[in-house]
C-alpha cells in the first residue's frame, strides 16, 4: 500500500510508537518464537549431538545423519519409511485431489439444487479426528465384523475381499485410501471456492459459443484454478510427510505388518520415544525430524519457486 498512514500515528513520539508495537506484536511474536521457531532450530541443533554413556550431550557433527542414511541398522527402516511415505503421497495425489476437483466441478454447476446439503455431507469426515476415522474403518474392514465383505458380496464381488489392513502388500494403500476418504473435503472446498470466483462473463461467453458444461469445465474453468491446484498439492505434500495419527491409531507405533505401513511420522516417533525393546534416542529423533523438515522445505520451495511463478493467478 502506497498511501501514507495516519498523521496521528506518524507524528507519535518514537518511544510511544515502539511501545505500541511491542504491545500489539509482543504476545504473538513471543509465543510463536518460543514454542514454534525456537524448538525447530533447537531440534536441528540437537541432531548434531549424541549422548555418551553418562547421558551427557556431546557434539557429534553430522554423524547422526551418516548413521541414519547409511548405517544398515538405521537406514533400512528409514528408507522404507521414506518410500512408503512417497507412496502415501502419490495415492493422495492420484485419488484424493482428482476426486475433490471433480466433485467441486459438479457442485459448482449453475442452478444445481441441494448443493449445500451435498457439501455439508461430503465435508463431514474431514471434521472428525483421524483416530476415530482410523478405528471406524478398522472395524468396517475387519473380517470379524464382515461388513465390507458383505457389501462386496451384495454387488457380486465377494471374492475380491481380503483383510486389506492386515496384508503387507495392501496395508499401506488401504490406509492411504482411508486418509483420502477423510480429507477429500479439503481440495473440494478450496477448488469450489476458486471456481465460484471465476467471472460469469467468461463462462457465459463460452456458453454462447456452444460449449457444454463438461468442456467449459475442462477448457476454461480448470486452467483458471491451476494456482489452487498447486496450493492443494503442496498442502497434501506437507500433510502427508507429517502424517502420523492414522497409522499410529490403526497399526500402532510398529506400523505393521512388518513395517509395511511405516511412514516418516511413525519412524520419528519410534526413534524419539523408543518402542518395546528399542530405547528412545532424542538426538537420533532430532535427526529424523531434521530430515523431515528438509523434505517438507524442499516441497514448499518447489511450490513457491516453480509452480507459483508459472501459474500466475488470473487477475479477476
Amino acid at each position, binding site marked *: 500500500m502506497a498511501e501514507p498512514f495516519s498523521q496521528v*500515528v506518524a507524528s507519535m513520539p518514537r518511544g510511544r510508537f515502539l511501545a505500541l508495537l511491542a504491545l500489539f506484536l509482543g504476545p504473538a511474536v513471543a509465543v510463536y518464537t518460543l514454542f514454534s521457531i525456537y524448538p525447530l532450530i533447537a531440534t536441528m541443533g540437537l541432531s548434531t549431538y549424541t549422548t555418551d554413556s553418562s547421558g551427557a550431550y556431546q557434539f557429534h557433527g553430522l554423524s547422526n545423519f551418516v548413521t541414519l542414511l547409511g548405517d544398515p541398522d538405521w537406514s533400512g527402516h528409514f528408507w522404507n519409511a521414506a518410500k512408503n511415505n512417497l507412496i502415501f503421497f502419490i495415492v493422495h495425489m492420484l485419488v484424493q485431489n482428482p476426486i475433490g476437483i471433480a466433485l467441486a466441478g459438479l457442485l459448482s454447476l449453475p442452478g444445481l439444487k441441494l448443493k449445500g446439503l451435498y457439501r455439508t455431507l*461430503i465435508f463431514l469426515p474431514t471434521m472428525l479426528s483421524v483416530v476415530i476415522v482410523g478405528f471406524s474403518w478398522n472395524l468396517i474392514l475387519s473380517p470379524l465384523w464382515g461388513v465390507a465383505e458383505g457389501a462386496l458380496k451384495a454387488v457380486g464381488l465377494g471374492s475380491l475381499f481380503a483383510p486389506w489392513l492386515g496384508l503387507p502388500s495392501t496395508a499401506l494403500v488401504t490406509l492411504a485410501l482411508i486418509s483420502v476418504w477423510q480429507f477429500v473435503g479439503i481440495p473440494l472446498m478450496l477448488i469450489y471456492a476458486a471456481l465460484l470466483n471465476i467471472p460469469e462473463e467468461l463462462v457465459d461467453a463460452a456458453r454462447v459459443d456452444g460449449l457444454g458444461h463438461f468442456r467449459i469445465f475442462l477448457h476454461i474453468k480448470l486452467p483458471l484454478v491451476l494456482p489452487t491446484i498447486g496450493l492443494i498439492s503442496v498442502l497434501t505434500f506437507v500433510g502427508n510427510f507429517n502424517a502420523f495419527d492414522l497409522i499410529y491409531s490403526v497399526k500402532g507405533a510398529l506400523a505393521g505388518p512388518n513395517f509395511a505401513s511405516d511412514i516418516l511420522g511413525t519412524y520419528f516417533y519410534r526413534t524419539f520415544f523408543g518402542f518395546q525393546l528399542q530405547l528412545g534416542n532424542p538426538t537420533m*529423533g532430532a535427526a529424523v525430524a531434521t530430515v523431515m523438515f528438509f523434505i517438507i522445505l524442499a516441497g514448499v520451495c518447489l511450490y513457491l519457486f516453480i509452480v507459483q511463478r508459472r501459474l500466475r493467478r488470473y487477475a479477476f
Partner: protein
Amino acid sequence: MFKQRAQILGVHAILIAYCALAIGPILLVVMNSFKARKAIFGAPLAPPNTDTFSLVGYAKVFSASHVGTYFMNSLIVTLVSMGLVLLFGAMAAWALTEYRFRGSTALALFLSIGIMVPIRLGSVAIVTMMRKAGLNDTLTALILVYIAQGLPLSIFILSEFVQQIPKDLRDAARCDGVPETRIFFEVIAPLLRPAIATVAVFTIVPIWNDLWFPLILTSSDSTHTITLGVQQFLGQYITDWNSVLAALSMAILPVVAIYVIFSRQLISGLTAGAVK
C-alpha cells in the same frame, strides 16, 4: 431438453452416491453402538429396534474410563487456545497491516513460516523444554504449543479482514484523540467478528482432533484429552465391540452436532479464507 434433464439426474446420482460413501461408515458405527453384541454381528446394517437396542457399551465406557475428565480437558485446551490465538492474532494482524515500520515485511514473513512448516518437527526440543520448565504433563504445555501452532494462519487470515475495514473509521477516531489501544479494542476488534468463524475452523478442529501433542506431552489420566483418551481406551478394549463402538460414537456425535449447527458459517468461512 431431455438430454439436459438426464445430465442433471446423472449429476445428482453421482453426488448422492458420494455422500453415501462419506457418511455411510459414520452412520454404521453410530447405529451399531446402540445395539446388543449379537445384533452388531448378526445384522450390522439393520438399525437398532426394541429387541436389539442396548446401551451396554456406553455404560462400560463411562465406568472404565475418565471420559468426563478427558472431555473437560479437551474443552479447556481448545477454548483457551482458540481465545488466545484470536486475541494475539488479531492484535498482531492489526499492527502488521496498520503500522508501517522497518522490518514489518520481514516480520510478516517470519510469522508465516509456521503456515507451511509443521510445529511437530520441533517436538524433541518442545518435550525437553517443557520438562525443564516443569510444565510436563500439564494442560498449559498443550495450550502454549497450540497457540504457537494456530497463530501463523490466523494472523494471515485476520490481516485480510483488517485490510477490508474502511480507513475512515480509525482516522475519524484518531482525530478525536482516541488512543490506539482503544481504537483497536473498541472500533476494530468488534468489526473482526465475522473473521472468528474462519479462524475458528482452522484452530478448533486441528486442536480438538490432535493426537500427537497429548501423546508426547501428557502422561496421566487427569491431563489426557478426549482424542488421546479414546485412542487409549480403544487400544485397551479392542475386543469389546460394544464399548469400542460406543466410545467411537461418543467422540463422533458432539463434533457432528456442532458441525451441523455451524456448517453454513464454517463452510463459508472456509471458502472465504481459501480465496485469498
